[in-house]
C-alpha cells in the first residue's frame, strides 16, 4: 500500500473539518470541527513518522493532544460564557461588530 495514503486520508479529514467550520452555526460543532482538523494533522504526523522512520512526529502528535485539551477547556469556557449571556450557542449571533 502506498504509505502516502495516510496523508491523503488526513487531508480529506482535514478538509471535512474545514468545511464543518464553515457551514455549521452551532459554536460547539464548529469547535468540534476544529478538533477534527487537529486530529487530521495528528494522523499526518503519525503517518509521516512511520514513513520517515523517525519518532519526532509521534512526540508532536502527543503534545498536540495536550494542547488540544487545553484549547478545548478555554474554548468551551468562552462558549459557555457566551451562551449564558445570549442564551444561544449560535456563532452567527455573535455578529454585533461588523463593517
Amino acid at each position, binding site marked *: 500500500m502506498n504509505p502516502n495514503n495516510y496523508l491523503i486520508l488526513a487531508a480529506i479529514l482535514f478538509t471535512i473539518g*474545514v468545511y464543518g*467550520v464553515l457551514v455549521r452555526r452551532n459554536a460547539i460543532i464548529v469547535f468540534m470541527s476544529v478538533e477534527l482538523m487537529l486530529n487530521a494533522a495528528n494522523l499526518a504526523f503519525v503517518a509521516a513518522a512511520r514513513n520517515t522512520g523517525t519518532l519526532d512526529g509521534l512526540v508532536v502528535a502527543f503534545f498536540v493532544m495536550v494542547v488540544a485539551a487545553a484549547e478545548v477547556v478555554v474554548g468551551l469556557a468562552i462558549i459557555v460564557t457566551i451562551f449564558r449571556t445570549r442564551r444561544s450557542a449560535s*456563532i452567527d449571533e*455573535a*455578529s454585533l461588530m*461588523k*463593517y
Partner: protein
Amino acid sequence: MIAALIGLPLVGATVLLLGGRRTNAWGHFLAVAMSAGSFLLGAFLFIQMVGKSEEEREVGQHLFDWIAVGAFQIPFGLHLDQLSIVFVLLITGVGTLIHIYSIGYMEHDPNRRRFFAYLNLFVAAMLLLVLADNYFLLYVGWEGVGLASYLLISFYQQKPSAATAGKKAFIVNRVGDVGLSLAIILMFVTFGTVTFEGVNAAAESGSPSTITWIGLALLLAACGKSAQFPLQSWLLDAMEGPTPVSALIHAATMVTAGVYLIVRAHAIFDLSETARTAVVIVGAITLLLGAFIGTAKDDIKKGLAGSTMSQIGYMVLAAGLGPVGYVFAIFHLLTHGMFKAGLFLGAGSVMHGMHDDVNMRHYGALRIMMKITYATFGLGFLAIIGVPPFAGFWSKDEIIYVAFSQSLIIGLATLLGAGVTAFYMTRMMAMTFFGEARWEDDVHPHESPAVMTIPMIVLALGSVFGGMAMLFVGDIEHWLEPVTGFAKPEHSVSHSVLIPITLAVVLGGALFAWLRYGRRPVPVVAPTDVRFLTRAARADAYGDALNEAAFMRPGQYLTRSLTWFDSKAIDGLVSGLAASIGGLSARAQRLQNGYARSYAVTMLGGAVLIALILLLVRL
C-alpha cells in the same frame, strides 16, 4: 546661525500653539517679530555672503547625523548658498510684510492667534525646504509647508467649501508627494546618497533611464506643489483661505517650491533630455491654461490664482530649458513673488473695503475711494503684464527671449501667454477700479488701515524697482551661476526685435480688454445668453448655495469649475479618485459582515489563493 533662521519662526509657532489663550493679546506681535528677526538674520547672512569671494559663499551647517547605515548617510544638515539665500530673503521678506498686513486683515477674527501660529509654522517649514542640504530634509520641509498650507486653506473651517478645498489640496498634493518620495528612494538606491552634493556628483553614474525616471518623479512632485498641469486644480479652490495666505503661500512662496526643486535638481535634468522636455511641455500647457482661466473669472482672487498658475508655468518652462533658463526661472520667481504678493494684498484690501465680496461685477470705480490700493495694485498690474521698466518686464522678457532661442512653438506660446495676461489683468483693473460703481446697497468702500497699506506700498516699490535692482545691481545671472550654471542662449532673434513685438502683443491684449470692460458698462449679473463659460463662472457668485450642494455631493463640486478650459477631466479624476476610493471601500466593507464563519471562508479562500500561487510558481 543658519538653523536660527528656521528656529525663530518655529519657536514662534510653538509658543502660540501651546500657549493657549494667554498669548491672544500679544501673539501676533510675537509672530511678526519672529518673522522679522528671521528676515534681519537672512539679510545679515546675505550681506556677509556678498562680502565673500565666489568660492566661499556656499556654507553648510551640519547639525547631526540622522541616519547612517553603512554606505547610506543622511545628515541632518543645512546649507546656504546663492540660490538659498535669495529664497530666504523672499520668504522672510514677503512673509514679514504679510505678517504685518495680517495684523490688520485678521483683526476681528477670533482665531487670529492660531492664524499667526500657522503662518510662522509655514515660514519655518518653507525655510527648512530651501535650506536643507539633502533631499530628505527637503522632503520634511515639503511636507511641512503642505501641512501648513492645508491648515490655512481650511482655516475658515466653518465654511464647508473651505474644508473641501483643504481636502482637495491635500489629496492632490499627496499625488505629488508620491512623486517626491519615489524620486528620493530611487536616488537613494541608485546613488547611495541623497545629499545635493552627493547626487550632483554621482548623477553621471546613473543609467540614463533611471535618471529620466527620477526626473519625471521630481516633475510630478513639482506639478503637485506648484499647481502645474495636470495637478493644477487645487490652487483655485485654495483661494478659500484668508487672503494673506493666498498672497504668501499660494502666490509668492510655496507654489514656487516646485520650481526650486527642479532648479535644485538641475544635475538630474541636465542629463535627461526627456525629463527636460516633459518639464517644458508641462510649463507651456500650464502657462496658457492658467492665463485662459484668468480671463473668465469674476472672482478677483480666483482670477489672480489663474494668473499665478500661468506665471509659475513660465518659471517651470524656463527651468525646463536647461542652463540657459534656470537663472531666469529664479529671476522671474523673485519678481513674481513681489508683484503677485502685492496684487493679492491689494485684492485683500479691496475685499476688506467691500464686505468680503469677491465678485468683481460688484466693484467698479474704486479708484476714487481706495487711492492707495489703486496705486499699489496698478503698479503690480504694470509689473505683471511686463511694461518696462517694471519688474515683470525684465524677467518675463528674458524667458520669452530664451524660449524663442530653443523652439519657435514654445516661444510663441510664451508670447501668447503674455498677451492673454495683459488681457485678463486689464479686465481686472477695469472692472475693479474703473467704470461706474456697481456696489451692493449696504457696502461702503473705504481705504484700509495703514498697517495693511504699508506692506502694499513696500511690495509695490518692489514691483517697480525689484527687477532692475536684481538685474543691474545684483547681477543675478552671475550671482546664481555657481549653483545653477549659466549659458548664453544662441540666438536668431535679437532683443531689439523681440521686445517691440512682445510689447505690441501686450498692449494689444490690454487694449482689447479695455475696449470690452473699460469703455462699456459691466453688467452686475453676468449675461445669461452668452457662452457656457460665463454661465459656469456665474455659478461662483452664488457660492454658498452651491457649496452646500457640493459638500453633500463631493463628486459634484468640481463641476462648478469655471471654463471649458479648466479641464474637467483632470478635476473629475481627482474627485473621482476620492469618490471611487470611498465607494470601493464601502463595497469592500461588505465583506466584513460580522460573521466569524464568513471570515473563515475568506481565510480558506486565502489558503486556496496561496496554494495556487505557490503551485503556479512551481510550474
